[in-house]
């Protein structure tokens, strides 16, 4: 069963099929020029209906009603011919150049086939040269090729080749051939061997497709854009070599396989197609192409004039160009490395699917698109310095270290905190020894040595009225009780000594306990009874907001937070009955160990207390913060007491030695030890600094 290979996808189809079963392409091309209503082997019914416009065109042609002459084309084709055959484009049709006449055989001799360019010079760009050549009437001096009588390698065709032209072609072929390269005729021969049989098999009785020489772009498939009658004439222009550096004149082209004419009536193109085994025109070997003055159009077709030919020879003589070293160094090698290794044609795979099925050597898209490629940057051309080498070695070392299993480090020897032990022991012993031994290493300050703040403090204490309660705000945590009780103890003692009723208020949850503790301690000394001599207002939550609210309206603020239920209604007490605002208190004492809370109370109480004195008994660490409020020109703080020296002095002023005296010697010893350690540390750091500076 004969099969037809699809020209598009190379799929084998039954011979009777009209279209490809794979891609749907037409297998039997509609051959074109109507000859008496019969179009080659195709049936008339297969032809598409002739459009009206074409009928009108046909009817306009004189003497050819409904039938286009074989030797004439439509008007547009005639115009193209006219444009393609000016005097400078080539010889007129049927005119043979003088040089050819000289070598031409006698009129009685069989005329050789004239080269195609002479009868149909290549049309300018954009003009369908094949169409024009097809429509050109055969030259009287040339013998057309009889259709169906020759094959590409047949001698009948070769016998029509001028001998001179064969020799010229042989010389050119030898001149182009390089050592180690395959002669040009070889690939042509292979191409013919592959292309022609397949074409002959596909279309044994039709005009064979003209195989494209290598380097020529594949001809696009015929489109059904125009009438079928015009398709042969409107055949695409002669293939333009896409990779050939210069066009090869038709006279120098290798022999092209002969194509069969569709019918006897079709215009016959005298082909100048020579086979390697063909015979050349007698006497042609004596022709020197260089001495022949070719027409200008042929010179152009040859690829330039004599200047260009000379340039071509000079280019051949030139030494191969060399790239400068610096440019060679910049040339990215990996970037342009071939991704797809081109295999020999015999080893290339045959496309199995798609429109290119059956073709061999189809470029695969996958290696180009999907397969990993070399990086775009030329990584191998980076200037590597010693630092880079060092870093690379370091990185490699790190990687090697990570590859190995790290040995289990032995238990790290714990360093003993000797310095901490020394400092702690020094301070602890300095404090403990006087406390245990009861030593009196540090004398009690005399009244002349009392702090100057004590005078002001006691002065303010002397102005506190005794008919109304004074407010004691406990604003410290139990951790500071050891210091605070030592300082505020003498103050509370002095207040009770003066018979001033007291009301305590805690701004911290544990403040109430601390207040009860200190008042219970001194009330027993002065006979103060709870509820009479002193009251506990309890805990006042809310921080600065609560302090501001309490100072503005103590009773309302106290009631808003619930007050102290265990105390009952403390405001009915005689000492608190007259209290409406904070300024109604006899005085406000702030016992605080926190800098922020102490400052908040001072800031909030200052504008609200009017003439009511505000006295602060604070921790030694808070004293620097509150000091400016005491030393200012309009001080919101009327008196301040802090630190053990102040407490000791206050006890001395009260005439009752208590906690401050018992802690004076341990405190003094501890301060001495701390100062010695600070001095020693400072000297050690200074010595180290000087030691480090000396080498520099």
């Amino acid at each position: 069963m004969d099969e037809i290979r699809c020209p598009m996808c190379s799929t084998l189809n039954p011979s009777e099929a009209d279209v490809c079963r794979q891609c749907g392409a037409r297998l039997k091309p509609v051959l074109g020029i109507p000859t008496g209503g019969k179009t080659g082997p195709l049936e008339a019914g297969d032809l598409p209906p002739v459009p009206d416009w074409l009928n009108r065109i046909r009817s306009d042609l004189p003497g050819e009603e409904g039938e286009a002459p074989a030797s004439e084309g439509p008007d547009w084709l005639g115009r193209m011919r006219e444009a393609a055959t000016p005097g400078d484009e080539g010889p007129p049709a049927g005119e043979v150049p003088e040089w050819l006449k000289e070598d031409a055989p006698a009129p009685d001799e069989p005329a050789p086939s004239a080269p195609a360019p002479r009868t149909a010079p290549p049309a300018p760009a954009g003009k369908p040269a094949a169409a024009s050549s097809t429509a050109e009437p055969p030259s009287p001096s040339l013998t057309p090729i009889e259709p169906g009588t020759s094959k590409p390698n047949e001698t009948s065709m070769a016998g029509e080749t001028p001998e001179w032209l064969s020799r010229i072609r042989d010389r050119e072929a030898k001149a182009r051939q390089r050592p180690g390269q395959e002669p040009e005729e070889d690939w042509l021969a292979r191409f013919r061997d592959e292309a022609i049989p397949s074409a002959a098999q596909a279309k044994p009785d039709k005009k064979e497709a003209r195989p494209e020489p290598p380097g020529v772009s594949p001809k696009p498939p015929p489109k059904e854009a125009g009438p079928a009658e015009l398709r042969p004439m409107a055949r695409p222009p002669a293939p333009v070599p896409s990779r050939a550096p210069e066009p090869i004149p038709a006279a120098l082209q290798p022999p092209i396989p002969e194509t069969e004419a569709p019918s006897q009536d079709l215009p016959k193109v005298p082909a100048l197609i020579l086979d390697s085994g063909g015979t050349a025109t007698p006497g042609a070997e004596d022709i020197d192409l260089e001495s022949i003055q070719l027409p200008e159009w042929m010179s152009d077709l040859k690829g330039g004039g004599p200047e260009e030919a000379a340039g071509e020879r000079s280019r051949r003589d030139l030494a191969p160009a060399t790239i400068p070293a610096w440019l060679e160094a910049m040339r990215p090698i990996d970037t342009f490395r071939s991704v797809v290794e081109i295999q020999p044609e015999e080893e290339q795979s045959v496309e199995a699917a798609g429109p290119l099925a059956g073709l061999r050597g189809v470029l695969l898209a996958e290696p180009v698109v999907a397969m990993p490629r070399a990086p775009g940057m030329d990584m191998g051309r980076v200037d590597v310095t010693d630092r880079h080498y060092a870093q690379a070695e370091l990185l490699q070392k790190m990687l090697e270290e990570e590859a190995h299993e790290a040995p289990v480090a032995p238990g790290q020897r714990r360093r003993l905190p000797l310095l901490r032990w020394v400092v702690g022991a020094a301070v602890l012993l300095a404090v403990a020894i006087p406390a245990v031994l009861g030593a009196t290493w540090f004398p009690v300050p005399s009244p002349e040595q009392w702090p100057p703040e004590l005078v002001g403090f006691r002065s303010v204490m002397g102005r506190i009225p005794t008919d109304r309660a004074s407010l004691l705000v406990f604003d410290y945590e139990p951790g500071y009780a050891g210091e605070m009780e030592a300082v505020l103890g003498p103050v509370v003692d002095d207040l009770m000594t003066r018979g001033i009723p007291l009301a305590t208020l805690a701004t911290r949850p544990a403040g109430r306990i601390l207040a009860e503790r200190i008042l219970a301690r001194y009330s027993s000394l002065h006979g103060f009874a709870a509820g009479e001599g002193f009251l506990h207002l309890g805990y006042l939550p809310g921080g600065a907001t609560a302090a501001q609210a309490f100072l503005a309206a103590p009773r309302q603020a106290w009631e808003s937070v619930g007050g102290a239920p265990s105390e009952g209604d403390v405001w009915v007490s005689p000492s608190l009955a007259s209290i409406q605002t904070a300024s109604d208190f006899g005085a406000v004492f702030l016992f605080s160990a926190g800098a922020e809370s102490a400052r908040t109370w001072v800031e909030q109480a200052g504008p609200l207390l009017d003439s009511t004195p505000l006295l602060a008994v604070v921790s030694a660490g808070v004293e620097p913060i509150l000091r400016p409020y005491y030393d200012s020109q309009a001080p919101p703080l009327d008196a301040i007491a802090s630190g053990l020296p102040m407490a000791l002095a206050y006890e001395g002023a009260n005439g009752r030695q208590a906690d401050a005296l018992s802690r004076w010697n341990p405190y003094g010893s501890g301060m001495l030890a701390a100062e010695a350690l600070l001095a020693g540390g400072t000297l050690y750091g200074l010595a180290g600094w000087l030691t480090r500076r000396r080498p520099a």
Partner: protein
Amino acid sequence: MLSLPLSELIGTIAAALLTLMVLSYLLGDNVLFRIAVHIFVGVAAGYAGATAWRGVLEPALIEPIRRGGLTAIFDPLTLIPVLLILMLLLKLSPATARAGGLPLALLVGVAAAVTVGGAISGTVLPQAWAAAESLSPTEVSPLTGETGLERTINVAIVLLGTLGTLFYFRFAARRSSGGVVGRPALGVVLASVGQVFLALTFGAMFAGAISASLVVLAERVQFVWGVVGGLLAAGTGAG
């Protein structure tokens, strides 16, 4: 020592032991120190909660309802705080935490307003007045009675310290004609002076903290030694 009530005796002994456990931190972080810290934190938190309940929530929230019945809830002085409390409790859940933003914003806003107002009237303005005192030697300080050169020097120190501290916290810079960005020369000098004043202030605070800590340490040592001495005396007396 043994004459104390049992509860007080136990409390005294526990206080002494906890003191020693805390002092054991001198040897390094150890389990005794951690136990003592956990006990202190737990006791402080528990006591704070109990105080808040007994001193605030129960008398201000529960007691009015108990006395006045359910109608007391609709009292604005009770209802609004209850609603705010409930909304604040909604912050416990991330899904409803947004509803707790209102009472939190109220707390923060009011506290900030009170604090800023007090800071301006109680700190900023008095400090400005102190820095704006006359440098005339003929003036007499109404507080201390200083006069003459001594007062002038003191006023100058206050002025210099105030300006220097303010310049130290001024981080703005100016680009000179040469393109160099930096403080003016006078600003750099004043900032350096301010840095000295700040260092002196922090040094004084550190010294005060050491002083307070030594007083506390002395009290604790005396307490522990008193307990140990009492126990030894009690043991000796019993023996």
